[in-house]
């Protein structure tokens, strides 16, 4: 084995290096097991085959169009959900009567699995992209709305009284008091929404099809039983997910640079 104990011991105290060793080990493992026959190579191609399939995919123009397709659908759906979530969140959140009236509806609609809307989406919207967007927006909207509602209701009552005592108008109150408190929650909502939106984008592409996207590429690969390229596409989907996570975390740090890192993701 390449990694002898001393390296492990020296890497022991440096997590980044250890993480790398972990990754390489994982890759090596997936290389050896199929070759040795522990895993059926037909369905578990060795890593080298997957990597070469990945390189082939990178070479194909259709691949990049598919990646672009998935990312655009994902971003459009996410943006609609985020804007709607924040606007509705602040409006509903800052009017207690509205907050109480809508609570039960929100609590009823939120857990409905967006994929349940799939048959409706196919039938209601003839253009496949619209149906997928319905799923993506529906799934990610609630993530943002719930967090923003928490943010608005978490505004410190004392701060609210001081703002009122200085006769800050409702609009200015929203701008200088509600928004800064809600922002960290909104960012959490966006981070959760981004992940869910990607899952639903690819689900839509897989089940509805008819749009340029990774999901469709996987369907094509499955039909021609091109197993290595299926894995390559899975790796790509994972990378997109990873980049999405890193990007949203990065954005969070920038936007919340001024905010004490104390930000509770409510265990609801």
């Amino acid at each position, binding site marked *: 084995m390449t990694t002898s104990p001393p390296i492990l011991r020296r890497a022991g105290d440096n997590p980044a290096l250890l993480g790398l060793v972990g990754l390489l080990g*994982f890759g090596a493992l997936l290389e050896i097991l199929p070759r040795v026959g522990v895993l059926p190579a037909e369905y578990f191609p060795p890593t080298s085959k997957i990597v070469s399939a990945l390189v082939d995919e990178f070479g194909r123009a259709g691949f990049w169009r598919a990646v672009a397709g998935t990312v655009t659908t994902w971003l459009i759906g996410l943006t609609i959900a985020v804007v709607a979530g924040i606007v509705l969140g602040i409006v509903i959140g800052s009017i207690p009567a509205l907050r109480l*009236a809508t609570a039960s509806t929100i609590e009823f609609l939120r857990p409905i*699995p967006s994929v349940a809307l799939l*048959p409706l989406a196919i*039938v209601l919207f003839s253009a496949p992209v619209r149906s997928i967007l319905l799923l993506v927006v529906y799934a990610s909207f609630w993530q943002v709305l719930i967090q923003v509602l928490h943010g608005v209701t978490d505004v410190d009552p004392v701060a609210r009284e001081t703002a009122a005592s200085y006769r800050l108008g409702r609009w200015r109150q929203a701008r200088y008091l509600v928004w800064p408190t809600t922002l960290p929650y909104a960012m959490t909502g966006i981070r959760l929404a981004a992940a869910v939106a990607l899952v639903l984008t690819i689900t839509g592409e897989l089940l509805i099809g008819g749009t340029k996207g990774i999901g469709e590429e996987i369907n094509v690969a*499955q039909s021609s039983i091109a197993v290595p390229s299926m894995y390559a596409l899975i790796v790509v989907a*994972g990378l997109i997910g*990873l980049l999405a996570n890193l990007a949203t975390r990065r954005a969070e740090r920038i936007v919340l640079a001024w905010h004490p890192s104390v930000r509770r993701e409510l265990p609801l």
Partner: protein
Amino acid sequence: MTRTLGRIALVLGLPAILLVTWWFASAGSTSFYQPPLETIVKVFPDTWTAARFKSDVVPSLIRLFIGYGLALVVGIGLGVLIGANRRLRSLLEPILEFLRAIPPPVLVPILILIAGIGNPTKVLVIVVGGVWPVLLNTVEGVRGVDDVLSDTCRSYKIHGWLRIRTFILRAASPQIVVGARQALSICIIMMVIGELLGATDGLGYTVVEFQRGFQIPEMWSGVFVLGLLGVLLSLAFTLVERRVLNWYHGARAAERSGH
């Protein structure tokens, strides 16, 4: 008395308005694919008969609970193992972060190719979807346990399974519950996807069957049942959570009121 009436009005108010508007808006609808709400409701009883429940709803639920249960057991088991061991955690963190980022539905075609379309695959699809939120939140929870409590355990010689059961798992439970709730919603989605991509029974299959048979009101009723399933499971989850975490909510309330 008026206070409870007021509360009921608030809880049922908006849903009632929305349903009524939908009822009348769709009343005259001639569009084949958007039948009046009235027909959907009328078709409900004889579509979702006891036989239908036994042949389709029950198999779906069994697969969901087995899959969700496995996702919890595997997720928490590995999570405790990884969370407690710093070196193991930094060794596995990059891999886990990548595997978590893979949108679970992407794995369904490959799983079907490998394991076919029988029940084992359907359960596997659910486990593969649900295990990540549980695993990563458990690692997070186990990592964040209070070190004073950990010292207390060491000095009072509480270790082994007793330590895991009464200290590690309980201390990490608020974070594990966050993961379990996320896993539940993912598992329901994966259950439906598993059934839409080639199945011979189950809720997802039934909805597709109605659509292929042009039974549109029944299809809408199927979507209602799926939605209801999501709502009821989320309600059940909240009840279980309230019992499991009553100590946690109590402690936070005490802490917040400056006790």
